[in-house]
């Protein structure tokens, strides 16, 4: 057995077929897919065999072993990196089969981290130079799969030679491989580009196809640089009858035309011609796509494309239908008519069995949305969503939400409708868009003042439905409903009912975070009710002013007069407990009809006077309800809940005292304690009724960082600071008066600065004190403090006047946000409060539009800059184009190989760098002239006029002299 193993292996080796049969057998026996223990033991056994066999000195044995391993690697994802060296070894074999197996293994398993890959360089070079075209072909295929920057650099000369191979199929492969090499080693562009361009004129369709494929990929990344080649592409576009080539050329033009509008005029006719003529759907579709993407200014072409799209849509083939819809989506922004004409097909496609087609149709439907039809379309879609499967249903809801909220709800005029639509969406059985709906409900509530009554109304409807609490997807929406109901409780028709809804037993199904919102809302409702009970006059006045303000300015004084004339105690048990709400419907119904309002008001006042004794019962009832529900939760382990429950219970204590105090006849019997309790209720109400404006995304950035605030410090230090005092993290009220706070604002930062400047040993206690004093307003945030302060408490009439005018208020807001923005007021539409976020988004859109341009601009800039710095060789990330510049240093190693050519390129590069834009142009010209300057003028279909030929000749001469003076800028003649 001395030399045995290898010989035995070769005689009794399991062949590839045996291995595959064995695998299949084991899989069958196990009855399952690969990866089961059964087959994996077989696989690992096989790999052990391979490990042994592959070391064999017999080529045949080694080849089979590697082949088996390759099989296992490619289909079972078995690691074969350990066999990399064996693959390289085999690739150097003289036996073609072994070589082929070695290269196959290499091309499949090698990657950039394979360390022995450099060992392959020599073999590849040898094979690239081989006389056997099949060996060359193998080497090219392998190189194209596993190319690394090193390989690309080392093998560029060979590739350059192969680009001129007289064997067509080698040339093609070399061309395709060049693309990879360009990507990895951009400097090679300067060597090979010229030959690539030469091949554009090759008579062999296959070669042209390969070349065009390469340019298509290159142009995808950086189209501008290939603009000068447009005449060549144009010729191919007109002459070629090969669909593969035409599709690629169309793709190139789709990229070039947007850069050079004049080009569009020239190519639009041939493209339409192809579109009319061709029977191949692939080419027809490419024509359509080119037109709808890049030639939209040419109306006739767009019309033709729209016709063809209609043909696609009426086909039975789902592929064509899908593509037709896609093309329609592309055309939609430019010519909505085309979409509207095909409306029927689009709507029908919504119920197609193919998900892709459905989605595409949905996108199209959303593209048709405008101010006029948004309601109608949403109605159709919601009905459709009710019938469709959960996934698509949510897709529909999602696209409605995103379309309607686009650009601050620009398509929405009737917000009452939209808010009720949101409420409806929550009830769609499969709805999983809770988060989005939540955001929009809150967002609209904050941004659009006029719609708040409807928001509260919708919120109430959602809250009182116990069935909804069981659906976890809706919890987020309920959270929003609870929040708006609490925040805008003054619009609530019936706080008692609302309170019951907020505290209903099934709320225990809610997650703690949402529950916390519920309790917080309950707190707000209770505060509001108590305030109403204690200060009926103020409350009424405030409510009237608030309601009246938005309806009729003159009405405000009248009504407040009429109210203050009477001593009113408010209270009605259930319906109409809230007088503000009583006015609310009138606002909607009667608009400016002041008379009716006044009469209604009188009615309310009189009836509330009548029912004065109900007040206390009602409040006591509410207090009892709240207490009995929330008391058990005071021990909750959820901090959020516990904290809020404690707040509510504290408030209840206060109110209790007050109410009991009131058992003694109320008027003129105020002793100190009562007064204090009332005061606190009032303060809290004021705090809560401060308006929350939307906060700019960049607001946080404008908060000056206090000196000495160390954000990166270890958190353990914080413990010492917080040890003796707990910050009321989430309670959203401060026991301090908002007024005093306002005064403080100015000084806060100063104080803080002073305080923070103290030595750190003292800072702990100072900080604590400071927080105690300022509560959550700890940070002197410009945004958070000043904006809310612009909204005076609802009951403060004198302040109210200041911001009575919506426009004024907006102006103020803009002043605060420091950035100018467009006026969002449209007359019939309620005002939607926007911040500078709007501008930001706008800019972003622009940015994406310009991105492509920016890249090429950057390239141009780099080029110009580089020129100044002269020719320092460096790899440029903005690859091809920039690297096409020739830099002599980098050329040196190659000059021996392709002497005259490189020199010529270098010369040209220098010349061309003077006219960055046309550098390629020049090159391409020159080569053409050198090659077939004489034959050129014969081509009648060439887009270029005759004058460039003169230039060619001069260039030719110049090239010949090899000592070129500055050349006059080359005019892009193909455009003239």
């Amino acid at each position: 057995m001395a030399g045995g193993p290898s010989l035995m292996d070769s005689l009794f080796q399991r062949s590839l077929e045996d291995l595959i049969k064995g695998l299949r057998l084991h899989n069958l026996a196990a009855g399952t897919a690969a990866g089961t223990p059964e087959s994996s033991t077989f696989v690992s056994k096989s790999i052990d065999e391979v490990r042994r066999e592959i070391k064999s000195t017999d080529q045949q044995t080694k080849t089979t072993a590697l082949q088996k391993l390759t099989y296992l690697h490619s289909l079972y994802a078995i690691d074969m990196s350990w066999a990399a060296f064996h693959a390289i070894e085999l690739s150097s074999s003289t036996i073609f089969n072994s070589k082929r197996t070695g290269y196959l293994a290499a091309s499949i398993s090698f990657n950039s981290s394979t360390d022995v890959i450099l060992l392959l360089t020599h073999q590849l070079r040898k094979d690239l130079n081989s006389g056997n075209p099949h060996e060359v072909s193998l080497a090219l295929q392998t190189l194209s799969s596993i190319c690394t920057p090193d390989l690309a650099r080392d093998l560029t000369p060979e590739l350059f030679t192969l680009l001129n191979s007289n064997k067509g199929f080698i040339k093609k492969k070399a061309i395709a491989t060049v693309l990879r090499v360009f990507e990895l080693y951009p400097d090679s562009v300067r060597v090979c580009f010229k030959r690539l361009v030469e091949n554009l004129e090759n008579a062999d369709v296959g070669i042209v196809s390969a070349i065009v494929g390469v340019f298509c990929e290159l142009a995808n990344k950086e189209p501008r640089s290939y603009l000068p080649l447009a005449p060549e592409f144009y010729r191919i576009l007109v002459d070629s009858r090969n669909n593969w080539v035409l599709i690629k050329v169309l793709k190139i033009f789709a990229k070039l035309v947007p850069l050079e509008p004049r080009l569009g005029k020239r190519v639009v006719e041939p493209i339409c011609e192809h579109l009319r003529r061709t029977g191949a759907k692939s080419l027809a579709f490419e024509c359509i796509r080119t037109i709808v993407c890049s030639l939209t200014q040419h109306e006739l072409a767009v019309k033709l494309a729209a016709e063809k799209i209609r043909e696609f849509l009426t086909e039975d083939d789902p592929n064509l239908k899908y593509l037709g819809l896609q093309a329609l989506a592309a055309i939609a922004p430019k010519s909505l008519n085309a979409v509207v004409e095909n409306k029927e097909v689009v709507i029908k496609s919504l119920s197609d069995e193919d998900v892709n087609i459905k989605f595409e149709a949905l996108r199209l439907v959303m593209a048709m949305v405008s101010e006029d039809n948004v309601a109608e379309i949403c109605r159709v879609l919601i009905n459709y969503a009710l019938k469709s499967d959960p996934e698509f249903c949510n897709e529909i809801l999602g696209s409605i939400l995103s379309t309607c909220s686009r650009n601050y709800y620009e398509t929405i005029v009737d917000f009452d409708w939209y808010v009720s639509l949101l409420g409806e969406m929550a009830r769609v059985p499969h709805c999983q868009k809770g988060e989005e709906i939540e955001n929009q409900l809150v967002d609209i509530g904050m941004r659009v003042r006029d719609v708040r009554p409807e928001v509260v109304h919708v919120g109430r409807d959602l809250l009182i439905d116990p069935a909804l609490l069981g659906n976890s997807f809706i919890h987020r929406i309920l959270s929003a409903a609870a929040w708006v109901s609490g925040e805008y409780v003054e619009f609530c028709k019936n706080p008692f009912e609302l309170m019951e809804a907020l505290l209903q037993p099934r709320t225990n199904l809610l997650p703690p975070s949402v529950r916390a919102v519920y309790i917080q809302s309950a707190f707000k409702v209770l505060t509001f009710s108590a305030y109403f009970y204690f200060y009926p006059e103020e409350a009424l006045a405030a409510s009237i002013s608030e309601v009246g303000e938005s309806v009729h300015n003159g009405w405000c004084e009248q009504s407040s007069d009429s109210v203050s004339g009477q001593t009113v105690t408010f209270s009605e048990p259930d319906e109409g407990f809230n007088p503000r709400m009583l006015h609310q419907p009138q606002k909607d119904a009667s608009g400016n009809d002041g008379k009716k309002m006044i009469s209604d008001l009188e009615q309310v006042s009189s009836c509330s006077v009548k029912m004065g004794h109900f007040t206390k019962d009602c409040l006591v009832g509410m207090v009892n309800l709240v207490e009995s529900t929330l008391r058990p939760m005071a021990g909750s382990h959820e901090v959020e809940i516990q904290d809020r429950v404690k707040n509510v219970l504290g408030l209840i204590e206060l109110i209790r005292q007050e109410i009991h105090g009131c058992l003694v006849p109320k008027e003129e019997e105020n002793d100190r304690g009562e007064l204090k309790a009332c005061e606190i209720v009032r303060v809290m109400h004021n705090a809560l009724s401060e308006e929350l404006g939307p906060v700019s995304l960049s607001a946080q950035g404008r908060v000056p960082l206090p000196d000495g605030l160390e954000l990166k410090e270890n958190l353990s230090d914080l413990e010492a600071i917080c040890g003796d005092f707990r910050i009321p993290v989430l309670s959203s009220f401060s026991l301090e008066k908002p007024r005093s706070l306002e005064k403080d604002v100015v000084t806060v930062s100063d104080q803080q600065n002073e305080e923070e400047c103290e030595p750190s040993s003292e800072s702990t206690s100072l900080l604590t004190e400071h927080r105690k004093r300022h509560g959550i307003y700890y940070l002197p945030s410009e945004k958070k403090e000043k904006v809310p302060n612009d909204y005076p408490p609802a009951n403060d009439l004198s302040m109210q006047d200041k911001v009575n005018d919506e426009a004024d208020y907006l102006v103020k807001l803009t002043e605060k946000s420091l950035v100018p923005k467009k006026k969002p007021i449209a007359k019939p539409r309620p005002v939607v409060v926007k911040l500078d976020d709007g501008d930001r988004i706008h800019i972003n859109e622009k940015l994406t539009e310009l991105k492509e341009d920016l890249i090429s601009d950057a390239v141009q800039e780099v080029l110009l800059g580089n020129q100044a710095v002269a020719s320092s060789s460096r790899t440029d990330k903005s690859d091809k184009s920039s690297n096409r510049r020739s830099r002599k240093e980098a050329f040196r190693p190659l000059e021996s190989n392709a002497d005259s050519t490189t020199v010529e390129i270098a010369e040209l590069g220098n010349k061309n760098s003077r006219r960055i834009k046309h550098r390629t142009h020049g090159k391409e010209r020159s080569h053409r002239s050198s090659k077939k300057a004489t034959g050129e003028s014969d081509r009648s279909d060439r887009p270029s006029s005759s004058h460039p030929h003169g230039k060619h000749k001069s260039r030719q001469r110049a090239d010949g002299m090899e000592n070129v003076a500055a050349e006059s800028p080359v005019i892009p003649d193909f455009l003239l």
Partner: protein
Amino acid sequence: MIHFVLLISRQGKVRLTKWYSPYPQKERTKVIRELSGLILPRGPKLCNFVEWRGFKVVYRRYASLYFCMCINQDDNELEILEIIHHYVEILDRYFGSVCELDLIFNFHKAYYILDELLIAGELQESSKKTVARHIAAQDSLVETAKEQASSLSNIIAEATK
């Protein structure tokens, strides 16, 4: 360009994978799993395109085998369908009414043919005849080599008897 080519059987078994864009091994397995889940359940009357991670996967089913190619969003889907069909026709011509088993046992040949057809994710040869000719020429090279090899091993076998 084509980012990768996958051949997946109806049972979800991989028959051939060719990657033209760099995907690490882990990623490859994930991609294959994802796409099998996406493509295999699709019914026969649906369109042949699947949107996936911002790419498009064009697939076509022949008997029990799915041929999938992944392309960029703005590539021509119909062209890829034609390439797939092209590949299948060449396989068919080479094996003589090709079936899944042919590809299983001759996986390397499926690769060789694919390499003749596509390079660096670009269509290389649109003529079926030419591809067939190249493959035949290479096969004959292999045959002669094999004959030599087998005769060699015969000699050795005899010598060691």
